[in-house]
């Protein structure tokens, strides 16, 4: 049994991110839209295999929260969201 979860890790609001700024400038320079803000991040897609996977979504989310806090994000500069994805 397996379920897919996605963890979105983004720079916190107000953190100057030169990578995102370079992308923003490029989009504006190409004449598409005048974008004042852009945020850039990473998506981690986890296909979790576990025989008890369908028992408690709460348990899974708590564990994923721990993974995000301790490994996938740096709380000083980043924040994250967790959602379940489709197979």
């Amino acid at each position, binding site marked *: 049994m397996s379920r897919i979860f996605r963890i979105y890790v983004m*720079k916190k609001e107000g*953190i*100057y*991110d*030169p*990578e995102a*700024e*370079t992308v923003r400038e490029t989009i504006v320079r190409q004449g598409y839209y005048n974008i004042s803000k852009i945020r850039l991040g990473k998506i981690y897609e986890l296909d979790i295999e576990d025989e008890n996977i369908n028992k408690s979504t709460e348990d899974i989310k708590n564990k994923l929260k721990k993974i995000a806090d*301790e*490994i*996938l994000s*740096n709380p*000083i*500069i980043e924040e994250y969201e967790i959602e379940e994805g489709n197979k």
Partner: protein
Amino acid sequence: MRKAGIIVFPGTNCEYDTYYAITGVAGYKAEMVWYKDVEFLDDYSFLVIPGGFSFGDYLRAGAIAALTETASRIADYAHNGGIVLGICNGFQILTEMNLLPGAFLKNRTCRFVSRWTFVRVEDVSSPFTNMFEKGELCYIPIAHFDGMYYKGSEDVRVAFRYCDGDGNVSLESNPDGTKDNIAGVLSTGGNILGIMPHPERAVEPILGGTDGLKIFLSIINFVENIR
């Protein structure tokens, strides 16, 4: 004479320069320790986490090294008052371990920066800076991509700041957009230093300068004579 321990992670690439600076130039003893072979750190008089790209800088610079069992041993060593110097990627590892405050973002220019810089010594009461005078200038090279130090609202104990050749701390002398020109940070207790410039690359005239040597001599002076 005791010896320094130089921790080597996969992707570390400044361990030989660091070894040479400590043994060949400063005249002290040192050994390189592969991170999986780390056992009794207490045998070392001080530790250095050298620069490089530990674990390819995957996830975030220094993040994966900070999650190793070795990092826990280094943290124990530091919590017991051990002297730990993190250079460049070593600095990033120390922040990811929460042994030093703050975090790193990509350079403001979004470019890798590799050049010589001046830094001003701001704190001379630490084991790493006891042979300097306050306000003294050091000419030491930098080479990094993720060098924009971010500290949020935290108060940090600043050891070095980027400046120009006259000692002015200015926007023009800030090579990577780092907060308040911060180039080196001490732990509250002073026994841990993270520094972005590479002192091991400035230890002999043939390299272009010798100012980095004083950091190693300060540490050796501290562990052998002061402590």
